[in-house]
């Protein structure tokens, strides 16, 4: 059981929650979060790791209140418990060299820990971050400590801002249309792109087959074999 350290709204309907008492994961992995005891909402909600503070043993999530489960998270106060099962999923591969991170909306969240890990693993590496928001930016400042550039787009298409012709690894997380646009751009430029996919999940560990998708290498489970895939493998599933 994790203990909530802080939980507050950082932008309209966007909340940041920090918890202690969970194992630490890595960028791109997620936890199934669940309010303890209640049978409704019943299932955990997959929420990505946004930032890990290994020293304090704390994990931060940033989540958007879209339905009953996330609305319930927003009512929790520091000191209360939350069930955090995980970390689950494969996480982002930390490829050597330059990195370009693209986050759309709440897809920004996992990019922060990714930036942190990329920077930590090689502080000399170039990191460019592109963030797209519909109306209001968040988390942007936090990227500055790790990134060489942070470009923000509000109301437009963030993928259009990105130069895919660099000798770099591209990482993207965001809504499906954004990922599809990134995939097309990567195709054209023959870029290396990793995407983090979203599917409705029940178990989060690969047992229920609720989140499978068709890939180049047969059916895969987004929760267990992903959520991060080389975009070429999952082109039809995006």
């Amino acid at each position, binding site marked *: 059981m994790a203990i909530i350290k802080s939980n507050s709204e950082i932008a309209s309907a966007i909340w940041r929650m920090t918890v202690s008492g969970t194992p630490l994961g890595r960028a791109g992995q997620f936890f199934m979060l669940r309010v303890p005891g209640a049978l409704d909402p019943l299932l955990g909600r997959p929420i990505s790791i946004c930032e890990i503070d290994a020293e304090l043993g704390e994990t931060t999530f940033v989540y958007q209140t879209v339905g009953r489960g996330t609305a319930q998270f927003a009512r929790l106060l520091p000191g209360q418990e939350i*069930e955090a099962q995980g970390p689950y999923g494969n996480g982002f591969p930390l490829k050597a060299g330059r990195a370009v991170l693209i986050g759309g909306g709440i897809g920004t969240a996992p990019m922060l820990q990714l930036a942190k890990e990329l920077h930590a693993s090689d502080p000399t590496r170039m990191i460019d971050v592109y963030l797209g928001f519909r109306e209001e930016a968040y988390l942007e400042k936090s990227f500055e400590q790790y990134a060489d550039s942070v470009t923000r787009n509000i109301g437009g298409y963030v993928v259009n801002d990105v130069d895919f012709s660099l000798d770099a690894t591209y990482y993207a997380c965001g809504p499906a249309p954004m990922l599809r646009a990134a995939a097309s751009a990567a195709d054209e430029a023959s870029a290396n792109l990793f995407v983090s996919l979203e599917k409705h999940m*029940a178990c989060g*560990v*690969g*047992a*229920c*087959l*609720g*989140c499978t998708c068709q890939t180049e290498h047969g059916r895969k489970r987004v929760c*267990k074999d992903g959520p991060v895939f080389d975009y070429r493998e999952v082109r039809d599933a995006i």
Partner: protein
Amino acid sequence: MQSNPLELTLCGIFLKNPVIAASGTFGFGHEYSEVMDISRLGGISGKGLTLNGSAGNKGMRVYETPSGMLNSIGLENPGVRHFVEHEAAYMRTLGPAVIANLGGHCEEDYLEGARLLNNADIDILELNISCPNVKAGGMAFGMLPDTAADITKKVKAVSKHPVMVKLSPNAPDLVAVARACEGAGADALSLVNTFLGMAIDVKKKRPVFENIYAGLSGPAILPIALRMVHQVAHAVNIPVVGMGGITSAEDALKFLMAGAVAVQVGTMTFADPNAMLSIIDGLAEYCAQEGLANLQEIVGII
């Protein structure tokens, strides 16, 4: 030496406790073995198999409902051959009794599947005639006493394993189906599979599932499942394995008191992977508190 008060024999198979992972909610054991001590379970019923395997259904597959969930997996599975060659031996290493869950689209599928499973080191064949999520076959075999009895008899004739028939709560006359399966030689019955339900995406003005209907499971269905287990257990003389929404030792005790010799747990494992272990602990505590030499003493007391 103190004997284990949770142990039982089901279809001649030893189970160290009456808590079995429900088919389709536990894969073949790999995944949860990474997050919990699955050797402690009484049994594991593997993902529903079909003769040639299947990619399952398109579109949305799982959808939460109040205290429950709808699924439309559609028996995505690697096929019986793959199971026999790659999974059965692995499942045997885990410790819990090994149950293979066999679905099918037509009679020949079931019979060929059962024949192939004769080559696998499994303990029980769970004959799934109750999957609501496949278009041909599946639940259709479990809806009427005659068809249920017919397939049971034929599978019994070819299988060397004990056959436990898994019943559908959607059958018009569940008790009649249960009796028919017993008459056809079933060694045990398990119930319930999922209830046919529906979800609508109001924003999209569309059913959530491509098949329109899907299967409801989880705590929401417990009161109905419990009633059905009570009815069936009182109507047949073969062992009944009960399930449907079990979340706790107390829930498991309800099914045992209603007449089930063992239980399966599905959806709750998704919500809390350790739920089955807590249930086993709770049942052991119950035996200690109540001074039961064996938990089976309370089976069917209601």
